[in-house]
């Protein structure tokens, strides 16, 4: 009869192999102060924009400069995170361990109007994916604003602002946790 080592011995061997590859393990990219600062600046600028445009019911056409300023900045931030860890992955972010059994791509397609663009699956590690999500979220906010026409951004419309801010906070929460060495 073949005898296999007990599971804990396999765990010990695994630990030793990991240890041989280096004395400490790093699974996600280190804290990046550029990401924290840019995301914080965007949070404040976006909040100010939605308050002032909400007050005046400004249309997309009247406010293109704001989108032209931030879209390249967010794209650059994503590129920076992908370049920092090109082969990085964020495990289980397609189905989230079965929480979204049909997969995120399918869910997004279902929530996309026919003929609309569906996001491709995000690439890179968790930080890069969070920044890609923020970039896409802001691009959709611009489309939302444009689709509102003369309604603009009414002050009572909380959802569009909150949905973008949710994606910014996700980036900030992870960066700050990294900074604090949680």
């Amino acid at each position, binding site marked *: 009869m073949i005898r296999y080592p007990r599971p804990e*011995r396999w765990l010990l061997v695994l*630990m030793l192999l*990991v240890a*041989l590859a280096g004395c400490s393990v790093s699974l996600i990219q280190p804290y990046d102060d550029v990401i924290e600062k840019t995301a914080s600046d965007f949070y404040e600028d976006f909040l100010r924009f939605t308050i002032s445009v909400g007050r005046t019911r400004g249309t997309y056409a009247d406010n293109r400069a704001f989108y032209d300023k931030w879209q390249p900045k967010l794209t650059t931030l994503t590129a920076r995170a992908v370049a920092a860890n090109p082969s990085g992955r964020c495990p289980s972010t397609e189905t989230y361990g079965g929480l979204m059994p049909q997969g*995120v791509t399918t869910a997004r397609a279902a929530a996309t109007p026919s003929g609309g663009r569906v996001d491709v699956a995000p690439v890179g590690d968790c930080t890069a994916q969070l920044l890609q999500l923020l970039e896409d979220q802001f691009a959709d*906010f611009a489309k939302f604003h444009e689709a509102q026409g003369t309604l603009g951004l009414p002050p009572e419309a*909380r959802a569009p602002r*909150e949905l973008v801010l949710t994606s910014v906070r996700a980036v900030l*929460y992870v960066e700050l946790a*990294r900074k604090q060495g949680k």
Partner: protein
Amino acid sequence: MALDADALLSTMSQAAANAFGQVWKDVKNYTIPELRKLAGTFVDIELGLSAKPPYYTKESADILFRMQVRATQSILTATTALTMMQVEKALNQILAAVRLAINEAVKFALV
């Protein structure tokens, strides 16, 4: 000195348990409040479409639904990242916990 696998396992398990205590705190302090805020946006979209006059157009509401999927993905990705940080911390704590015993046993600085 021979290595005692059971003692090492006990040391490693304790280090892992201490590290993973933070995961639940992160879920409680970050994930659940964010999901609660997200739930509020569903109510707002329904109100915006049924208000007289509506403050969302049909086309803009479609975009909002897509943004809700993405916001949910952001929250879950951040939760995954926070969990990975704890996995990383646990691995490093486990290595640190057994470093002395292993190095003494092999008589050189293996770990």
